[in-house]
């Protein structure tokens, strides 16, 4: 019975992995080839949706290293995002240090291909869904992302700033006059009534 279940799980894994890898292969057509790493890349969404089937099995994911490397002793957390979401990868601190760029506003992070054991709810890590990496390969180096200025926006910003400054000065002078009027009214005992 157990053998049957294991076979069914393995078959499910193979089918899902192959199906997803076709998409990933098409998406990653321009990605430089990583020679020695298996091609069966599983997307995060497929892992999430089929978490019980994948639990404890080996999986290969490919995605961008994002945010920060969080070293914990000899190991480290690196969060890896593909187009469908992000997952935490538990790897050796040494491997994590080989990542040169992490995804942020100003950078596109290194694209990693990670093979490791997928955990639906990792016992070692308090129930986190994660992957414990066995191999980590950088398939594309990250790069800085330029954010050019828009002249039209600069002009709009300048004009709006000038107009806003003018408006605030007018309001200030109007408020001053109002306060003077109110204090005059209060002195002469004609304080304004309150709302109905």
């Amino acid at each position, binding site marked *: 019975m157990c053998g049957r279940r294991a076979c069914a799980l393995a078959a499910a894994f193979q089918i899902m992995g192959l199906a997803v890898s076709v998409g990933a292969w098409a998406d990653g057509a321009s990605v430089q080839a990583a020679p020695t790493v298996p091609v069966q890349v599983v997307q995060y969404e497929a892992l999430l949706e089929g978490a019980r089937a994948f639990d404890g099995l080996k999986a290969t994911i490919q995605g961008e290293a994002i945010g920060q490397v*969080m070293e914990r002793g000899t190991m480290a957390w690196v969060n890896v995002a593909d187009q469908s979401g992000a997952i935490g990868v538990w790897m050796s601190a040494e491997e994590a240090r080989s990542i040169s760029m992490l995804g942020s*506003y100003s950078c596109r992070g290194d694209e990693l291909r990670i093979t490791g054991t997928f955990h639906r709810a990792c016992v070692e890590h*308090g129930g986190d869904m994660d992957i414990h990496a066995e191999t980590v390969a950088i398939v594309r180096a990250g790069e800085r992302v330029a954010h050019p200025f*828009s002249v039209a*926006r600069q002009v709009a910003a300048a004009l709006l700033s000038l107009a806003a400054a003018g*408006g605030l000065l007018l309001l200030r002078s109007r408020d001053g006059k109002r306060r003077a009027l109110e204090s005059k009214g209060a002195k002469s005992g004609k304080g304004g009534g309150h709302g109905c």
Partner: protein
Amino acid sequence: MRNHPRKEDYLIILSYTGRVAIGLGIVCVAPMLVAIVEGEWSVLVDFVICAGACLLSGAVLAMLMPTEAHPGWLHGMVATAVSWLLAMVLAAIPYALSGHYGSYLDCMFDAMSGFTTTGLTLVLDLDHLSMALNTWRHVITFVGGQGVVVLALSFLIDGSAGSYELYVGEGKDERLFPSVLHTAKAIWKISAAYFVVGMVALWVTGVAIGLPVKAAFYHGMWIYMAAWSTGGFAPMSQNFLYYHSAAYEMVSVVFFVAGSLNFALHHAVLTGSRREMIKNIETISFFASFVILFSIVAAGLMRAGAYPDLVAMMRKGFYQVISGHTTTGFMTISARQFALEWGDLALCGMCVAMMIGGSAGSTAGGIKGLRVGALLLAVRHDGRRLLLPPSAVFKKKMHMIEDRYLGDEQVRAYAIITVLYVGMWVFATLAGVAAGYPALEAAFEAASVTGNVGLSIGVTAPAMPIFLKIVYILVIWAGRLEFMAILALGGFIVSAVRRR
């Protein structure tokens, strides 16, 4: 105000709204500073545009105040409701300019979600958002938690007539001081004091869990603002799962639980009345409902076999329940895991926790512990009345800073708000089901939206139908303002369009 609004009424309302817009323009300074420090120059320009739009529209509207103005109850209420809508439109400008959103509606959704401390988001590619825009998301959550109008009251409206109505319209009716202006300032002082402590605690913990010092500082600042405001926004797409740290989770719990407590309770405790913590009806109600609901969720998780051991179940279950019950919305699991792994019983427990929410007069949303506690007390009083002889006299009171008489009028007011919340949850659930989502998922998301929570089961996404986005915006707006200002606005519109 008369039955049929006059020109003067419109001008007073617009004038107050203008002051709030000016306040929002000033708040833009925070992300601008971050943009300068981080060299995000194109983002800086976006925030100059936003600040300019806020200050210009605010100045123009504020100048409309008639010379002989007599602001009243309805002016304050309507101005509050309108102010939140205007703030949503204006705060969406930097989002739209960032290119991280599919439409301006999505930007407004996120702005309203931020102001109302809901924390649901439609942002695309959050992991590549600029530091300044991330600061903006969290600053508007922080401002919204204390109250957009409280901000204006504190610094821009000089405690004049109508200010109490503005304050109450924002869902806060506890006065720490006789003057509403002093109360508004005290709220900011309490928040500022916690800000320093919370940010440092999260910064230090962030460094300890391996974040670089600078990143730990920013994450600490953002997470503190979201936690204290019971907001739920986080700087990364995985939300709290990004950190993979029980320590970071525990520190956040301290501050979002603190944020979900009544400002009056904070004030009482900080000024020496420490026993208030164990006597207050809201803390008792919160503790009791948390224990019951966590037990239900834990039973559901065990039945569903969601986690392999007790430690994992306790850690994930506890965090999601406390986050939902305080209406914070931080998540340490993926949204889809709720639907795929948690099971129906746990989800039902979560729905109730989200609907009850935190304390009245806090940054939290939901029906509120005060109302739930008071209604249960009223049930107890009625039960005693049935059991005791008709001539028996017993005290009908509750303790909330001081002993208060719990009369029928008070119970009626609490019951009305509770019924409105439940009605709105039903409405939002039906909208979700109509959009094609399974009933339990629609109910979960509706509870999150109604209670201004921010936990998601995966319904809230950029691809969800436009009508559902609009429904959710309206529901989180009404839920945050606790209906009164919305009903006032509705009444104002009806009286404006009705023929004389």
